[in-house]
């Protein structure tokens, strides 16, 4: 039995739809977006999302600053981005319309809550007159004006809610309409309403009524001639769920904890967009996860190091400003040579910057943001689902090499979501962790002896005979005693550097999408994977010799990177910063990389990448490999 009605209208089959829902931050757009995403994923589509919300919790209502948006692309083929141009845009008020309209394609569907368009709202949105009335709007788009507030009130009137509560249901009305338009089943959302509002039967019933009313409006009104159908995508067989980046990191950490037989301590201080990792992990106490909300980021990482010293795996996370505070302690973690994971969910910087917007500008901070020579491994997930694998990989490296490992995520990945194929436990790597056993203490313990990975032993306090002292002062080789000996400092600095460098031998070589030589190599890292991959795919299909290498390991980089860079006439590095990876590649490999750089708090659109990379590919085509001053040496 299904609770979802079926349509009598024409259904047009399309391969993918990009829709953005935009309204005031109090309008429930994020909820609407998440529901649409889950429903589409359950229908078997591939989905990718991009939530975009203001930094203020209650930004002034009705203003442009208060607009909250949620974009989702769902498709019957594999997709890697939430889409550039919108096929449909739902706007709840004038501010949402004027700030989002430029992304709607010509001929796209604009659904507007007519009731949100009045003199008061025009003033708040700082528009002279009703933007819906402009003749160019009707000419350019398929405009559907719906009196959502009134229709919602009518639909829920029988439940006797006050006007305020009744009006809150209008996002469910909008949802119903959108579901009708795109042939989505109401069932998952009906289940959601039951689970969320079950204890308040009148609210639940009102939301259900609003949802159904929205659906019925689409079915009965003449405004829409047809609805659309996006078939299931052909994904790798398996069981899937929808997952957000921060959720995936939390789950990856818990998985690694189980795989390594190590309990986990998570010390952190709330900061956008990292806080959700804490919220997720607090649910996993029955996995032995101890979460600690510290008094600040410094205490957060210090508590993490304290736990690691005690033999428990320590994890901390923050965003750029908090990572800056953690710098000194990261250096201590490095010289103590204790395993831990430090997650930076990057956001727009510098300083407080753009807290809710995405950027990739902490790479240099991760690489060098500590005093002294203190290299640390740096990894970056490329998508929400990849956060799971990166968390396990970081755990493996940290325990195998006895050192802190940095994960560079970003706001786009953290809040974005995609279908995630649930792995079987047998597919996950084993992580072997051991602690030295006790001794009778007749010989002084040597806490800085090293194994083949140059890792020192992880001796746990409480073990007889292994008493030792660690600290931030330079250590003497092997004994770990304080040492100011010049030659020893050189040796220890070199050893710590070599320990990180040799990780390159134990990670997979860099893979390439496309040929391993050609005109242009696009090199990217982190959350820009989807746009870069999609762009290169299109450029290749247009006949250009362009390939794509996406780095998940930033320090050390895979050992074949130098050779790869040298095999193309031009190297292009798109980044949401002013050229940080480009600087590293140039410095390390003497390759004159070109940058495509954007710092607008927004991800790349595929279109802008296609344009710029194609231009470079055109110019590279006629260039002989030695011309153009492109250094091709790889060291």
């Amino acid at each position, binding site marked *: 039995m299904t609770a979802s009605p079926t349509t009598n209208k024409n259904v047009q089959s399309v391969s993918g739809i990009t829709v953005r829902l935009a309204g005031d931050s109090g309008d429930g757009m994020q909820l609407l977006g998440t529901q649409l995403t889950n429903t589409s994923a359950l229908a078997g589509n591939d989905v990718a999302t991009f939530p975009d919300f203001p930094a203020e919790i209650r930004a002034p209502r009705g203003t442009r600053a208060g607009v909250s948006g949620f974009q989702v692309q769902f498709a019957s083929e594999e997709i890697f981005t939430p889409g550039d141009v919108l096929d449909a845009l739902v706007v709840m008020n004038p501010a949402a319309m004027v700030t989002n309209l430029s992304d709607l394609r010509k001929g796209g569907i604009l659904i507007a809550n007519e009731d949100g368009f009045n003199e008061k709202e025009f003033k708040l949105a700082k528009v002279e007159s009703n933007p819906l009335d402009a003749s160019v709007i009707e000419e350019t788009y398929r405009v559907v004006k719906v009196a959502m507030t009134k229709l919602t009130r009518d639909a829920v009137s029988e439940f006797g809610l006050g006007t305020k509560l009744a009006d809150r249901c209008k996002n469910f009305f909008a949802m119903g309409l959108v579901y009708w338009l795109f042939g989505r089943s109401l069932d998952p959302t009906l289940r959601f309403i039951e689970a969320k509002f079950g204890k308040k039967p009148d609210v639940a019933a009102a939301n259900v009524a609003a949802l159904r009313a929205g659906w019925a409006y689409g079915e009965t009104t003449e405004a829409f001639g047809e609805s659309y159908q996006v078939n299931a995508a052909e994904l790798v*067989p398996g069981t899937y769920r929808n997952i957000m980046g921060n959720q995936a990191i939390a789950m990856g950490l818990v998985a690694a904890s189980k795989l390594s037989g190590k309990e986990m301590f998570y010390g952190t201080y709330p900061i956008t967009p990292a806080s959700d990792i804490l919220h997720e992990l607090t649910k996993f106490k029955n996995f032995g996860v101890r979460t600690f909300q510290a008094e600040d980021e410094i205490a957060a990482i210090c508590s993490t190091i304290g736990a690691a010293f005690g033999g428990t795996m320590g994890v901390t996370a923050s965003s750029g400003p908090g990572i800056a505070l953690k710098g000194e302690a990261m250096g201590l973690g490095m010289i103590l040579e204790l395993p831990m994971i430090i997650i930076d969910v990057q956001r727009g910087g510098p300083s407080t910057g753009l807290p809710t917007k995405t950027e990739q500008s902490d790479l240099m901070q991760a690489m060098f943001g500590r005093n002294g020579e203190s290299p640390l491994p740096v990894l970056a997930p490329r998508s929400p689902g990849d956060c799971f694998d990166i968390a396990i990989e970081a755990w493996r490296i940290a325990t195998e090499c006895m050192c802190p490992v940095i994960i560079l995520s970003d706001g786009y990945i953290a809040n974005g979501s995609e279908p995630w194929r649930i792995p079987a436990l047998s597919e996950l790597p084993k992580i072997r962790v051991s602690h030295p056993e006790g001794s009778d203490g007749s010989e002084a313990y040597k806490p800085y002896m090293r194994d083949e990975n140059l890792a020192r032993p992880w001796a746990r306090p409480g073990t007889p005979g292994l008493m030792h002292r660690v600290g931030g002062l330079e250590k003497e080789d092997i004994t770990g005693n304080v040492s100011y000996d010049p030659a020893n400092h050189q040796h220890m600095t070199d050893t710590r550097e070599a320990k990180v460098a040799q990780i390159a031998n134990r990670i997979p070589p860099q893979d390439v999408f496309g040929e391993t030589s050609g005109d242009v190599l696009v090199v990217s890292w982190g959350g820009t994977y989807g746009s870069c991959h999609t762009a290169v795919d299109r450029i290749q299909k247009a006949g250009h010799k362009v390939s794509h290498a996406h780095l998940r390991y930033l320090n050390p980089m895979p050992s074949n990177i130098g050779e790869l860079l040298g095999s193309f006439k031009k190297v292009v590095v798109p980044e949401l910063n002013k050229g940080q990876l480009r600087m590293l590649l140039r410095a390390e490999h003497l390759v004159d990389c070109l940058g495509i750089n954007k710092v607008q708090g927004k991800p790349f659109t595929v279109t802008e990448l296609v344009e710029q990379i194609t231009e470079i590919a055109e110019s590279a085509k006629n260039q002989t490999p030695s011309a153009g001053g492109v250094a091709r040496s790889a060291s």
Partner: protein
Amino acid sequence: MSSLPVLKAADFASDQDVRWCPGCGDYSILAQMKKVLPELGVPREKIVFISGIGCSSRFPYYMNTYGMHSIHGRAPAFATGLKSTRPDLMVWVITGDGDALSIGGNHFIHMLRRNIDVNVVLFNNRIYGLTKGQYSPTSREGQITKSTPMGSIDHPLSPLSLALAAEATFVARSIDAHVKHLGQTLARAAAHKGTSLVEVYQNCNVFNDGAMAYAQEKKQRDDNVVELEHGKPLIFAKGTKGIRLVGNHLEIVNTADVPADDLLIHDEKSPNPSIHMMLARMSYPEMPEPIGVFRAVENVETYDDQINAQVDLARSTKGEGDLEALFASGDTWTVQ
């Protein structure tokens, strides 16, 4: 079960040379610690010393236990992470007045209010020793130091007042030169469950020599220091003077002039910290300064017990974490 080997003070000495200036008060604190620990019957491997940065913070290197010399001011945070995950260990935090109250002020407060079961020894020499003689948050107003040639204009901070304001469950003070008292106080701190804070007046004979001579020197001590004992009246100056509570302040009286039960009787167990706070505010030269245990409140839950209790509770109610079930939670679908 085999009985524990009997340890001596010397067993707690590490093989590292102690490098404090000759005559530094730190030596005496180290000696008392080595003397007290064997009496506690805790094996060496179960003891961890965590320090920040400063002369005093070199302490862990000199103890044959587990230890961590961390970063300036943050020892409480390291100790929190360690104790939360390893409640079986006895954790000591070693800190200085600059370390605990200046750069580490925030962590100091939060460690105390959380009541983590660690023992804190705060070496107070009212100066920055390691950085060679700048004034500290406990330096007296007007003090001439390297960084205050015209005299310090900061109002000094009392670590004990601060601790009491944070509702610390164990607050005490002792003196480096008063070795017997120091040993006893450390032993009581070790026995306390919850954060125990012992402020130790410690002479920095190089940069602040004699700053607390009024309390350290035998000759002056009797007149300037009042020893607190639970249930006993506050008497000093060889029994000739006492402390009386009048209205909302404390005053000095001659014991000959007032009936004995007019004197303030010390109650370290009072859950209300108001009188403890008054004691902490007694300061030389207007008043004698109390040493001993100001406050010792038992049965307040510790942070480490509670964080672990939540894990146990989650395990007993939800069952041991199951990865497969976790992955599959929420809406899932299958692609053939």
